[in-house]
C-alpha cells in the first residue's frame, strides 16, 4: 500500500515546499485544542473563580456575595495564618538547601563504579516515586510517641535516655517535616543531576587532569558550570512542589501540636474544608500565587541569562 501511494505522489513533486507548509497553522491550532480546553476549564476558570471566592463571603452550600478584602483582613490578624506563612517559607528554604547538597552528593556517588550499581540506583529513587501518603505514614509510625523505632535505637545506643519527642513539640515537629521532605525529595535532585553529569564529556576531566587540576578544581570548574541548566530546572520544579506541598504536612502532623506546624496549604484546607469558610480558605491559598510567581520569575531570569 505504501508503495502505491508513493508512486502517485511522485508525479506531483513540482511544489513539495508549498505542500509542506500549506496547512501548518490550521493543524497547529487543531492539535492544541484538547490540551488547551482542559487547561482552560480546569485551571484558568477555577483560578479566576478562586479569586472571586477570596473576595466573597462564600461558605459550604452558600454562594456568598462580594465583601471586598475582608478575607484578607482576617489573614492579617490571624496568628495561625502568619505562623503557617512563615512555616511554608522555612520549610521550602531549608529543605531545598539540603536536597540540593545531598542530591549533588548522591549524583556524584552514583556516577562512580561500585557493586550492585543498578540495584542501588533503583533503590535510591524509591522515596520519590512511591505515593507520599504511604511513605509519610511509615515515617509517622517511626516517629510515634510511644513506639518510635528511631527512639528505640537512640535509647538503646545510649545517646539519650528518653529519645526525642518527634511530633509532640513545635520545633521537633517542624524538623520532622523537613527530614521527611528531604528524604522524599533528594532522589529527584540526585537522578536529575546524575543525568546532567552524564552529558558532560569525559575528555574535559582528562584534559583537566593532564593540566594538574585537583578533584576539587575539576568539580568547581567543570562539573558545576556544566550542571547549571539542569540545576536551575530542578530547583524550579522542586521549589514549586515544596511550596505547594499538602500531603506530607497533612499526613505527618496536620498542624499538631496546637496548629503550630501548619503550612499555607494545610491551613487553607482546615479553614476551607474543615471549617467550611471557603472564601477565607481561597484567600489563604491564593497567597501562594505571588510567592510562586516571584520565585519562578527569578529562576527564569537566571536561566535565560547567558553565561
Amino acid at each position, binding site marked *: 500500500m505504501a508503495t502505491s501511494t508513493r508512486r502517485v505522489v511522485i508525479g506531483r513533486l513540482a511544489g513539495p515546499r508549498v505542500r509542506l507548509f500549506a496547512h501548518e497553522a490550521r493543524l497547529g491550532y487543531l492539535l*492544541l485544542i484538547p490540551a488547551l480546553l482542559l487547561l482552560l476549564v480546569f485551571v484558568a476558570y477555577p*483560578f479566576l473563580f478562586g479569586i472571586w471566592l477570596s473576595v466573597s463571603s462564600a461558605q459550604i452550600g452558600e454562594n456568598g456575595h462580594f465583601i471586598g478584602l475582608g478575607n484578607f483582613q482576617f489573614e492579617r490578624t490571624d496568628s495561625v495564618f502568619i505562623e503557617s506563612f512563615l512555616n511554608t517559607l522555612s520549610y521550602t528554604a531549608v529543605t531545598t538547601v539540603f536536597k540540593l547538597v545531598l542530591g549533588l552528593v548522591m549524583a556524584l556517588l552514583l556516577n562512580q*563504579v561500585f557493586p550492585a550499581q543498578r540495584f542501588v540506583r533503583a533503590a535510591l529513587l524509591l522515596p520519590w*516515586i512511591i505515593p507520599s501518603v504511604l511513605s509519610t505514614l511509615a515515617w509517622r509510625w517511626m516517629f510515634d510517641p510511644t513506639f518510635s523505632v528511631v527512639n528505640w535505637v537512640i535509647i538503646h545506643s545510649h545517646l539519650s535516655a528518653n529519645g526525642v519527642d518527634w511530633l509532640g513539640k513545635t520545633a521537633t515537629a517542624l524538623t520532622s517535616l523537613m527530614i521527611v521532605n528531604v528524604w522524599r525529595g533528594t532522589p529527584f535532585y540526585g537522578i536529575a543531576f546524575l*543525568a546532567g553529569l552524564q552529558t558532560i564529556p*569525559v575528555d574535559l576531566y582528562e584534559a583537566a587532569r593532564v593540566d594538574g587540576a585537583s578533584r576539587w578544581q575539576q568539580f568547581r570548574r567543570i562539573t558545576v558550570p556544566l550542571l547549571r541548566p539542569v540545576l536551575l530546572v530542578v530547583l524550579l520544579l522542586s521549589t514549586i512542589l515544596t511550596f*505547594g506541598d*499538602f*500531603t506530607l504536612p497533612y499526613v505527618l502532623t496536620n498542624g499538631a501540636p496546637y496548629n503550630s506546624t501548619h503550612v499555607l496549604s494545610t491551613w487553607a484546607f482546615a479553614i476551607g474544608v474543615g471549617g467550611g469558610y*471557603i472564601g477565607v480558605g481561597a484567600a489563604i491559598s491564593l497567597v501562594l500565587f505571588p510567592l510562586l510567581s516571584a520565585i519562578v520569575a527569578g529562576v527564569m531570569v537566571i536561566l535565560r541569562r547567558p553565561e
Partner: protein
Amino acid sequence: MAARVARPRRLGPARRQVGDRFAGRLFRVYIPVAIFTFVTLFPFYWMAITSIKSNSELLDHTKNPLFVLQPNLQNYADLFFKTNFIHWTINSALVAIASTSISLLCSILAGYSLARLRYRGANAIGWGVFVTYLVPPTLLFLPMAFVIAQLHLFNNYLSLILTYPTFLIPFCTWLLMGYFRGIPRELEEAALVDGASRVQAMVRVVIPLALPGILSAGMFAFTLSWGEFLYALVFMNDTVVKTVPVGVVNELIKGDEFFWGELMAAALLGSIPVALLYSFFVDYFVAGMTAGAVKG
C-alpha cells in the same frame, strides 16, 4: 524486543580514576553509598516488618522492634477482607491509567504542535502552558470543588480523571517538546516528500522516534496520579470510590487510633505498582528527563 533498539545508553559509566586505592574508594564511595542506601530503604524495611507482626508483638515494649518473632499475614487478611482495600486499588489503577492516557494524548499533540509547526502565537501559547505550573492543586482545590459540584461529578471517577491532567499536561508537554525538537526535521521532510501527509509523518516518523520521551512522560504522569491525594480527598467521599491514599488515611485511621499493622501492609502494597514500573524502566525515565530538561 523492538524496544531494545531505542534503549538509552546504560547509565553509570566507568569513571574510575587512575591511581585509585581501595581505602580511598572505601571512604569516598562505598561507605557513603551504603549510608544513602540504608537511610533510603529503612522506612520500607520498617513497613514490611510492621506489616507481618501480630498486634501483641507490635505493642510489646520489651522485645527488639527491629525483628519479627512470629511473622503472620493477619494484617493482610484484614486489609483484604475487612476493608475496601481491593476497591481502592482498582479505583487508583483506573484513575491513574485513564488520566495518564488523556494527558499523554493531549501532550503529544500539543508538544508536537508547539515544537514542530510554525504559526503565530506558538511561542506565547508554549509559555502559557508552562505558566499553569504556577497554579498547583494546592491553590486550586477550593474553587475546583465548586466546579466539580457544578458539573455534578462528586464521587465520580471523572472528577479525578479530568482534573489530574491539569498538572500532568504542562510537564509532559514541556518534556515532549524537548524530545520532538531533538528529532531532525529532515526525517520528517523526507516522509512528506515521499507523499505522507503531515499527520502521517507525525504518527509514523516523529512519534516512534520520541518513544523513550513518551515513555518517561507516561511514567511521570502515572506516578503522580497514582499518588495524588488532595483532589481525591476533597472529591471522593464514598468509601467504595476512594483511591488508595485517601482510603488508607480516612478509613485505617479512626480518630486517634492508628491500625499500624494494616496501615503498613497497605503502604507496602500501594507502593508495589510504581516500584515495579521503575525497576524495569528506570534508565528510560532518567534519559527522558534529561532530554526534556536540558533542551526544553
